[in-house]
């Protein structure tokens, strides 16, 4: 019997970006730079008539992404990846504008080096990771995860990063550490959404998120520093972001500068804004609808235009129930949505 083993560093066919897609990405972002919010329509003038609030933006140079070395995803992931061009041009990152294409258009001059990620609070070993430390302190690996937005669309993203659990272990939490409180950079000079209420959607910044410590220790919880083989572009949360694949996307906080270990459940941005719509847990749950839309199914964004028939059933815990359902076995998830 031949037992075939593959090296972890070996690239798999399905992880290779299609060349057309790769070229299209630059094309897409270039166009976005030119046209701003009325983007990608070949005629910005006519779009302007009907979209009077469109952001006009002069083109700017693309943010420079570096190649990363990492261990490629081991198990084959059967679902089709979302093209890089779409992952990097369809973003909810209100710090750079509320419309999906605005973050890519308005964030390309974002500075990520120097960076400081401060780990503090109830830990024996508080530490600060600088820009280079983000890529060198832990072994980087690729994780292909489903990403389910609370707005009922989803993607499949080849992230690169390290387990949040590794970071937690390094910080050595004390017995009083029950939760992790995450914080995004607050820099109104660089983040136009933090300067303007209209661009930033009326959110109180900085954006904050939280996890229970056992959630943070789950091997699926990822601190991501890259996608598609390269460092993250700003619109996806450069230089480092959280990825919690069994929760709605808004839990996966971007451009993180602080992780504080705390005793009490920390406040979280969307929950503060509308507690009846967004809970602390925010586990993907097809049985509990958002008050204003159904969560039973989702549109999977991959390739194909308007006629792509991409509506699929949403799975409990976004399909990661086997790994995470145990975290919530004694909880009523209708109450703790």
């Amino acid at each position, binding site marked *: 019997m031949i037992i075939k083993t593959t090296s972890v560093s070996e690239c798999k066919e399905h992880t290779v970006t299609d060349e057309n897609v790769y070229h299209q990405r630059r094309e897409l972002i270039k166009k976005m730079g030119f046209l701003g919010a009325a983007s990608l329509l070949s005629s910005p003038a006519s779009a302007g008539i009907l979209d009077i609030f469109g952001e006009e933006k002069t083109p700017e140079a693309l943010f420079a992404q570096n190649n990363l070395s990492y261990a490629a995803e081991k198990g084959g992931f059967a679902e089709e990846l979302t093209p890089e061009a779409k992952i990097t041009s369809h973003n909810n990152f209100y710090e750079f504008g509320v419309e999906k294409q605005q973050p890519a258009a308005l964030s390309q001059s974002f500075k990520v080096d120097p960076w400081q990620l401060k780990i503090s609070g109830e830990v024996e070993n508080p530490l600060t990771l600088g820009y280079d430390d983000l890529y060198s302190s832990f072994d980087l690996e690729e994780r292909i995860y489903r990403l389910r937005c609370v707005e009922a*669309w989803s993607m499949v993203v080849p992230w690169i990063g390290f387990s949040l659990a590794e970071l937690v272990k390094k910080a050595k939490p004390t017995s009083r550490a029950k939760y992790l409180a995450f914080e995004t950079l607050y820099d109104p000079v660089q983040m136009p959404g933090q300067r303007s209420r209209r661009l930033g959607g009326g959110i109180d910044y900085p954006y904050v998120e939280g996890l229970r410590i056992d959630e943070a220790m789950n091997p699926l919880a990822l601190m991501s520093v890259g996608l598609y083989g390269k460092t993250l572009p700003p619109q996806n949360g450069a230089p480092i972001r959280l990825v919690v694949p069994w929760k709605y996307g808004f839990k996966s906080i971007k451009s993180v500068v602080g992780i504080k270990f705390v005793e009490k459940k920390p406040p979280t941005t969307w929950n503060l804004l509308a507690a009846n719509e967004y809970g602390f847990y925010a586990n993907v749950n097809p049985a509990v609808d958002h008050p204003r839309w159904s969560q039973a199914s989702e549109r999977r964004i991959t*390739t194909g235009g308007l006629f792509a028939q991409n509506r699929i059933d949403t799975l409990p815990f976004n399909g990661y129930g086997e790994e995470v359902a145990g975290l919530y076995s004694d909880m009523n998830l209708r109450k703790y949505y």
Partner: protein
Amino acid sequence: MVITVSQQRIPYLKALVHLAALYPLINLYYAAINDRLGGDPVEAVIHFTGIGALNLLLISLLISPLAKRFKLSFLMRFRRMIGLYAFTYGLCHMLNFLFFEVQFDVKLFIKEVFERPYITVGMSAFVLLIALAVTSITKLRRKMKGKWQTLHNITYLIALLVVIHFYWSVKSEIIEPLIYFAMYAALMGFRYKKLRGWQDKLFSR
């Protein structure tokens, strides 16, 4: 100041309005079908046609105050056309939701229309718009005589419903919907006397 536009020029101007309303729509679907409309062409076409319908509706409501105030009576000849384009954009908006968002899942479509208040409000506005679109046919209009104006006054209600629909649909970015509320209020302000008259009639009974 009186600006008059000669009879001969009207058809050219109308052609221009047709072009201005249709070109963005054709452009939009061309880009969306070819997957050149950002990450999610579905969301893009839904938003574009929705906001387009609202803008056209407000423009149609601006016409008679403008025509009266500046004595631009020729503008009135464009009102039906613009109203019908508001209906067309609204129709596209609704069909986008049915075809591309819920993807012909009629059960889900009906459930969403009745269970989500913001969609219920939007759909009500659309149903009312159908009545206005149908009665815009000249023959019907003549038949209806005075009743026509009474029926078409529900445009005021439709525009209000659409603004509420917009306000209700956003997650947190309410500034833009609030600006639309202000524009709606201004348009109603131009009709102060008319609305006041209705109010008096209503309460004097």
